[in-house]
């Protein structure tokens, strides 16, 4: 399936999918900004990289995953998990479980 790609004002990628009411070239001209390109969606990042859409960038007509942006997304997801693990480690060192602490503090 063909889709249309363009770079947004924040440097990310936008993917426009035509409904078929109009030919894709008309959609390109009508719905997308100058510089947008038509590609086959099989060329878009697959697998786990597809989940990092906010790290996608359009470089020389091809979507690539910006590794720095990808790592920033991973860090943002990981931060609360790390904080929770740290708290649990401190409780373990005191010989307490999370459930026991919850019971103590209500």
């Amino acid at each position, binding site marked *: 399936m063909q889709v249309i790609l363009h770079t*947004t*004002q924040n440097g990310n990628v936008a*993917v426009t999918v035509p*409904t078929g009411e109009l030919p894709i070239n008309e959609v390109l001209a009508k*719905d997308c900004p100058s510089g947008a390109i038509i590609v086959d969606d099989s060329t878009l990042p697959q697998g786990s990289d597809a989940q990092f859409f906010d790290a996608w960038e359009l470089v020389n007509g091809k979507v690539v995953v910006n590794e720095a942006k990808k790592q920033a997304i991973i860090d943002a997801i990981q931060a609360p998990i790390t904080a929770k693990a740290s708290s649990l480690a401190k409780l373990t060192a005191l010989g307490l479980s999370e459930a026991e602490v919850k019971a103590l503090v209500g």
Partner: protein
Amino acid sequence: MSTIINGSSPSITFSDSTTQTTAGLTAASPTITSGSLTFPDATTQSSGSGVAKAWVNFNPSAGSVTLNASYNVSSVTYSGTGYYVVNFTNAFADNKYASAGAASPDSGAYTCVVGTNETNNAVYSAQTTTTCPIAAVRSYSNVLSNPYVVCVAFYR
């Protein structure tokens, strides 16, 4: 020629007492072969205030959307998790149209809601005569999310 439509079992009776069948008219589903449908308030299908001028049903996923069905929509743009733009085939007369939307839960089974994304910032602009930005969020946390299904209709 006058027509009479009976109440309990509707049928057309002509002034010479013939009916649709006895007059030799072929029974067929009502169709408009010329002209246009006109409502009692003199509006038409394209101008009627009670008629959806555009609608779309799609499945968003990371990086794209799968379009299920639509009317007067030329394309849908995926701009990020929970951010979509609906592009109309035929433009509205102005941008004062209303939208009504529904969304399924997301992959985390969280209830989601959709609405127009009138943030008006540099990336996601306000609705225009040709495009309408849509946002989907988890109802309990207001975090942007991709529901399994998004349905939106537009009225003017």
